[in-house]
């Protein structure tokens, strides 16, 4: 038996290329591709997190962009106060405060909203996750101090020991390593006993309840983990763009994340990364032709839905990883 399965080899190659190519481009004067790769890695972390509950758990959350946005604001708001004063206890650019804050806030939000959402099923669940995401959007926009509609410009990155986030290579490095960790974390969780319960519930909820599993509790836990990981991705995103916009939490962002997960291969480790790559590539190519790139993009999405074998649910249920 070879060391890695075929799928494992593909994953290794893709991740290796992702680690090596962007820095090479940067060092040869093409900073653009490094930036693209950084953004890609951050989006991929969010997609990997969503995959935990969507791909493995079968929970169609249309509100995950809210976690990303909250994480970004958890970086932006302390930085804003540090730059412009007010709320001294929160004013800081220390990464050791901002990142844990991002994770804590999003975990709490996931816990509260998940507790409500997970009592519902099917289309209700979808609608309610959208509604809660929109709620956060309106909340943020209503706070004038943090820029409202226009968003928050902070122009300064988190202070971390040993790493200078103002250096694009190091920022990419952090994003990439975070992505690797996220992938391994999700892989570990889904292969564990917890993961088996989650996947079992996706396959047949009534059976799992009859066996004696309190499915609600397991799903809520997965939801919180997923939300917190997305929050971390948001913290990275805030550091990358240094411009925190409420648009980051718009529910259409959630739709994009969902497509990444489903198209790339739900319930696989590499799938969300492939989905993120595909999304970024399509976005770049299409937008180089026209600023109206949402039109062909939307048509593509519709095409996928209309022509995918077994529909998206078929794609969602389709493949299992080798060795399961």
């Amino acid at each position: 038996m070879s060391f890695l399965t075929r799928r494992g080899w593909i994953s290794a190659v893709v991740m290796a290329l992702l680690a090596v190519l962007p820095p090479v481009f940067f060092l040869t004067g093409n900073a653009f591709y490094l930036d693209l790769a950084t953004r890609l890695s951050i989006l991929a972390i969010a997609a990997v997190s969503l995959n935990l509950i969507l791909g493995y758990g079968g929970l169609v959350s249309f509100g995950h962009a809210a976690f990303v946005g909250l994480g970004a604001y958890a970086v932006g708001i302390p930085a804003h106060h540090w730059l412009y004063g007010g709320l001294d206890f929160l004013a800081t650019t220390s990464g050791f405060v901002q990142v844990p804050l991002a994770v804590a806030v999003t975990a709490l939000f996931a816990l509260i909203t998940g507790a409500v959402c997970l009592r519902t099923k099917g289309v209700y669940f979808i609608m309610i996750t959208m509604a809660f995401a929109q709620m956060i959007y309106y909340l943020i926009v209503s706070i004038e101090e943090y820029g409202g509609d226009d968003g928050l410009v902070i122009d300064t990155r988190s202070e971390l020991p040993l790493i200078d986030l103002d250096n694009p290579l190091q920022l990419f490095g952090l994003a990439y390593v975070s992505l690797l960790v996220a992938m391994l974390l999700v892989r570990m969780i889904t292969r564990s006993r917890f993961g088996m319960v989650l996947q079992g519930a996706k396959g047949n909820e009534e059976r799992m309840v009859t066996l004696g599993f309190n499915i609600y509790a397991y799903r809520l836990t997965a939801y919180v983990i997923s939300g917190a990981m997305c929050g971390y991705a948001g913290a990275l995103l805030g550091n990358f763009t240094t411009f925190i916009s409420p648009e980051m939490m718009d529910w259409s962002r959630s739709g994009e994340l969902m497509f990444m997960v489903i198209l790339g291969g739900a319930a696989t480790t590499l799938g969300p990364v492939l989905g993120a790559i595909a999304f970024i590539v399509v976005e770049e190519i299409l937008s180089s032709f026209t600023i109206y790139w949402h039109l062909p993009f939307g048509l593509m999405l519709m095409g996928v839905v209309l022509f995918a074998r077994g529909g998206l649910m078929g794609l969602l249920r389709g493949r299992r990883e080798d060795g399961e």
Partner: protein
Amino acid sequence: MDLSLLIIQALNGVQLGLLLFLVASGLTLVFGILDFVNLAHGSLYMLGAFICASLTFLFGNFLWAVLVALPLTGGIGYLVERFVARPLYARNHLDHVLGTFGLILVLDTLAHLIWGPAGIAVPLPHWLDGQIALTETLVIPSFRLLIIGAGLTAAAGLFWLVNYTRLGMLIRAGASNRTMVAALGIDIQTLFALVFALGAMLAGLAGMLIAPITEASIGMGNSIIITAFVVIIVGGIGSMKGAFIAAILIGLIDTMGRSFLDDIFKLAMSPEAAETSAPAVSAMLIYIIMALVLALRPQGLFPPRTR
């Protein structure tokens, strides 16, 4: 607290509620009867507004524009049903959601292409642009009265249609037993297309009515759709009565909340705390209500009777 301000805001709340009902009714009709989740319903609201705006400039008359824009919007609704919804009926709700999400992107960009990125203000004729004095101190813009009147008329019309006409009976029958109705020789496809077009017209009408006040703009559909979801969740998915009551309730709570929450908070906390927290809480208010309803009565306030 000023009584006339209270009444005016209450009327504004009712107005918002009626508009919400127009949008939500189409959504709940399509979901209740066709079992189809149409995220792009908000885009129909937006297209109604834009088409009416263009026609107003073309005809020079707002009312004629509305009369012509309505069937046009219905026609677009029919096209959506025919080419997007119909192939997806047999599929899962997830497919509906993501398919219509793609459709939103397409329609939003088309709107951008046709009407440009900025919003379009819709001019009203003089006689609609004035104010009406309800009492000595109470003055409201006459257009708002028109909106309330139009909304109530549409609601009454819907109620009559669903409960007292043959079409309404078919709609209700189709909702509970599709195969049976089809077996009776009724053309389910035409029925569904009609329902979809009707829903589109209702949403479009709401857009046309709001456009003179807030402009026709590209994002307007995406925000109203979520509020419409909240309405039908609170009211009970598939229930017209629920949609109506929930819409009025939510319209009132949202409007009054934004106006008076800081005053209410000031009764319990310092003015500064009230001023900072009130806008935030009022922004979240209707979602908190939705969460409460879900916690206490998950099927909604007035769920339709299950078969």
